[in-house]
Structure formats: C-alpha cells, structure tokens
C-alpha cells in the first residue's frame, strides 16, 4: 500500500474525497462544455483539463470564507471550491441572464462572484495580478485577515503586469499568493519559446519572495505549498510564488486545433499523468476510496452536471436592451 500523505498535511479522509470530487466536478463540467460546443450549442469553451489537481489542491488550502481568489480562465476547480456551482458555470457557458459571473456578457471562463470573493476577471492576461496585490493591500489597511490568491499561465508570467504586481507585493510584504499554472504551452508556443529560465519560480527572488515549483498533478503537493504560502501571508511575512507543473490535456480552447503544433503522442503520454486518474489511484491505494465510492461520486457529479446543463440550456438570455445597463452606477 502507498504511503498516506494527506494525514501528515492534516487532511482527513473526508477532505481528500471532497478534493477528489471537486476535481471530478471540474472535469465533468468541462467535458460537457466540449460536447455542447461540438454539437453547436455553445460557441466557446476553454478548459481546465489537466489542471484540476493544482486548482483544487490550492483552493482547499485557502479559507473560502474570507480569502479572495483572482482566478484565470481555466480555474474551474478554484471557483467550484469557492462556492460557484455547476449550474452557475453552465449558465455562463450558455451565456444566460442568470449567469452570476456576468449575466452572459462575458465568455465562459471569465469568473466573478462577489458573494464568494471571486474577483471579476477579463480576457487580457495577467491584469488580475496587480488586482490581487491591491486587494491584499486593502485587506492589510483594514486589518483584515485575508490572503489574495491569484493564478495565471506560464506564458502570462511574461507580461509586465506580473513583474510590476509581484514587485509591489514584495516591497509592501503583502499576503498574496501568486500561482503560476505551468501547463507547458501558451496556445501553440511551447515553454522554451516563452521562458529562458528553468522554472517560473526562479523569478521569485527578484521580488524578495520565496518561490517553489511543485507537481501540479498532485493536489496534495499543491495543497501543501499553498498552505505554507497562506500561513506566511497571514503571519505578515509577505507574498509567495508557487509554480505548478502540469500539462494542458485539451487544445487551448474550442477554437484551437493543437495538432498543428504538438504531437498526439505527446498528449497521450501526458494523459498517463492525468490527475483525475492518478489522484483516484492514490485514494484507492490508501484505502480512502473503493470502486463503489468512485462510482457513487461519479454518479453524483454527473447528475449535478446533467441537471445544470438542462437548467442552463432552457434558461432565458438577457434582454437585448439590458446591454445598456451598468455602464456606470445607477441610482
């Protein structure tokens, strides 16, 4: 039997099952989105597949009653952990009025839900990084015990906003966790054409913060790294840069054909490390989950996804004229 690593991290069996179930939920929602896209029901999908362990492992290390998350477009696992539901996500996929992210104004993957402190995001990459710093600054000014958690891809770590935001947080010792979800590609551009450094985490020292690289297919490794970063932040010791290494299992988005720039064999190889499979195996090997429970969880998740899909599909769009609302505050 494999070593039980989650107990050492203070994670109960129930917790790790929750983590697994959330990862599975993210995966199943995403898979459904692709089906809906390929059958012409929704115009666009951008995937979390392959990054669920990193996302859910990280989000579980935060306090979803007070921390702020600034997810990037792949972070289905993060927002699920912070309270967004499958229904919310499906409403967003279908661009319906009830979508809490934007009432169908934004593409799917542009998360935002104030009640859950999921901070509204945009398409231009990396702009959320300074926002996280601003939220941490505001929290500090108001003596609130909060951590701001922000994610981005390895390609996006090359934007000026990463540099400027990280440096600001470093100088002001703010409780920010910068998590780079390194999935080895930025659309078609492979990591060696994006970065000259070994690891994105090598950049941390330039901002006076610790940087760690962890296995993004292992939710427990990510949990641990983010937990330490959150603890540091809460202790007033400043920000941390965490890099998770995984692989993007789908094309970049539903508009992309990845066969033009990477070999199917490379993808197939990466799929052997699929975190849903490997973490499932861990849970079985540690005796936390058996086949029956696995099936039960899967059935529960599928039922929720099915219901969410049906609901969202038949929900109404926002009225055309509602496009005129909320440019400015309305009295």
């Amino acid at each position, binding site marked *: 039997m494999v070593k039980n690593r989650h107990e050492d991290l203070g994670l109960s069996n129930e917790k790790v099952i929750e983590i697994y179930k959330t990862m599975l939920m993210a995966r199943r929602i995403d898979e459904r989105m692709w089906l809906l896209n390929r059958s012409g029901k929704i115009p666009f999908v951008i995937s979390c597949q392959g990054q669920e362990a990193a996302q859910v492992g990280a989000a579980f290390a935060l306090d979803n009653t007070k921390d*702020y998350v600034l997810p990037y477009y792949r972070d289905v696992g993060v927002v699920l952990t912070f309270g967004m539901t499958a229904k919310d996500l499906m409403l967003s996929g279908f661009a319906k009025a009830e979508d*809490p*992210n*934007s*009432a169908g*104004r*934004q593409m799917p993957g*542009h998360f*935002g*839900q*104030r009640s859950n402190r999921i*901070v*509204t995001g*945009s*398409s*231009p990459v990396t*702009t959320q*990084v*300074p*926002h*996280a*710093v*601003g*939220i*941490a*600054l*505001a*929290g500090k*000014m108001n003596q609130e015990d909060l951590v*701001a958690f922000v994610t981005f891809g390895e390609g996006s770590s090359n934007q*000026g*906003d990463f*540099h*400027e*935001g990280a*440096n*600001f947080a470093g*100088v*002001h010792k703010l409780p920010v966790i910068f998590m780079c979800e390194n999935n080895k590609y930025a659309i078609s551009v492979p990591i060696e054409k994006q970065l000259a450094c070994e690891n994105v985490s090598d950049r941390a020292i330039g901002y006076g913060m610790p940087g760690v690289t962890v296995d993004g297919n292992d939710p427990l490794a990510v949990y641990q790294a983010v937990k330490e970063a959150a603890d540091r932040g809460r202790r007033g010791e400043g920000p941390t840069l965490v890099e998770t290494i995984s692989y993007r299992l789908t094309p970049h988005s539903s508009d992309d054909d990845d066969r033009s720039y990477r070999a199917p064999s490379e993808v197939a190889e990466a799929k052997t490390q699929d975190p849903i499979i490997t973490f499932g195996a861990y849970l079985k090997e540690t005796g936390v989950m058996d086949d029956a429970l696995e099936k039960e969880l899967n059935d529960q998740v599928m039922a929720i996804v099915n219901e969410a899909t049906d609901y969202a599909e038949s929900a109404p769009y926002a009225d055309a004229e509602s496009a005129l*609302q*909320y*440019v*400015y*505050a*309305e009295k």
Partner: protein
Amino acid sequence: MPVISYIDAVTMAIREEMERDSQVFVLGEDVGKKGGVFKATHGLYDQFGEHRVIDTPLAESAIAGVGVGAAMYGMRPIAEMQFADFIMPAINQIISEAAKVRYRSNNDWSCPMVIRAPYGGGVHGALYHSQSVEAIFANQPGLKIVMPSTPYDVKGLLKAAIRDDDPVLFFEHKRAYRLIKGEVPADDYVLPIGKADVKRQGEDITVITYGLCVHFALQAAEKLASDGISAHVLDLRTVYPLDKEAIVEAASKTGKVLLITEDTKEGSIIGEVAAIIAENCLFDLDAPIMRLAGPDIPAMPYAPTMEKYFMVNPDKVEKAMRELAEY
C-alpha cells in the same frame, strides 16, 4: 472666501476627503515623503502616514492595477500618474479593467477610483511632459474624464470624483497649478461630474473649451466686450461623457461656435463636440464650426520658439474669436 491656487485646491480636496472617509488613500510615485513632484500631495504624508499616502515603486501599470484591486475591494484609491504622459503604461489597466469592471460583472463589482495626472504645456516640458492625453480615453464608456479650469471647480469636482462610484480620470493643467488662483470655500461642497458650466454669458459668439484655455477665452472675451462683441463661454469641465444638452444650448444660443483645445487638432475631443452640434442643432448655426487647437505634430517641442508656436494662447484665441464674430 479664501483665494487659493489651483494646486492648493487639489491638496485641499484630497485632504478633506481623507479626513472624511478612512477608505480614501493616495498612491503614486513620490507622492509621500516628497509630497509629489508638483507638491499636490504636500503635507498628506505627515498627516495621514505612509500607509495612506503610499510611495509606490516606479511602475504605472501597477499603480493603476493595485488601485483597481483596492477599489474592487471597496476602498477609494486616488492614484497619481506623475505626468499625464506617463499614463501610457497603465492604459491596459484603465481601459480593459477599471472602465469595464462594473459592466462585465453585471453590476456585481465596481471600481470607485480616481486617477489624477498633471497634463498640458507651456512649462518647457517638451514632448513628454506637456501632452494632453484625454482623447485617448474619451471613447471608453465606463470612464469619466474631468478637466477643471478653476480652483473652485477643482475642489468641488475632485471631491465628487473621489466619492463617485466609478473610475474617474482627473486631469489637472500643470501650468494652471500656480498660475490660476481663485476663491474656494473652506467648507465641503461637490460639483456635478458630467455637467458643463457657463463661465460667461454672451450673445454674439459661443466659445466652448476646457482647462487652461477657459482663461484665455475669458481674457479675450473681456477685450472683445470693449469692442461691443459679446462672447458666451462654456467650460466643458467633464470631457467624457460630454454634456450634450449644455453644448447644444450654448451653440444654439449664438449660432457661431469656436471650439478650443490645447491638444493637437485631429481626433481631439472638440471633434466630438463639433459632431454633437452638427447632429443636433445644425440649422441654428450661422457660421461653420471653427476649431482652434495645437498643430498635428506628435507633441510640443522644448525650444521656446517651437513651444510657443504650438501652444494656444490668449492672442490666438482673441484672433479666432474676432474672426468668428466678423463672419
């Protein structure tokens, strides 16, 4: 009523708002210990401490972006761009983020922040310390752009901007800072953002402008008055979104319109003012719409000969007003 300078009105407005609301804070380059390169935040560091008057690293996108984050949290940041010319690196944060936070989240989030910046020429600032940058932003719904001309307006509009629930770009004419003085009440007042202001009533010609040029127009109007020409002067005050009603009213009143900006001409905000007039009260016009602006060159040069050639000044304004009156 005390007479104070334009820049002192800036400081006064910030101080009063910081005293009133603990969520208001200042961030920018050299705004703290030094009190700003123009001294607009002078004394605030001593009064409110380094945590509310933050000397940031030299990075405008972070200044704007950290401000956006703090504003989304619920604070009311006042970010200073040291010169309007240096707002360029922050444009992504301003246009993609600040302007769109409320809209994209369907009113779930908002971004109540002010970005202040000194703009304008005539101070030997050369290409990169003289520009008018408002036209770059004056096509972005979600933003408001305020450009006051008098100390009274500065105080009332800056306080309104700080209390506004949406992002406001507040551009201060750097040559007006110490040149323009005026009466400013010591007590609390706000002026409405989005409203133009008639700075002079007149019957023969209408001048529509903003910022320092308002003063040039008023000076010229005095001279014209002694020749029996009566000029109506409308100060836009908010250049985006424009006060269409006031523009149409002012244009219709005399039927002869001169639009003035210190910016380069093509694509400046007075083009939009002309369009509003041409769309709404074309048949009230007795003369073509006239525009006085800087030449279409990248920015004003440093050498005094060329700088003077670029700048709008009272003589150029007077000449244009006379020409229009005689049309």
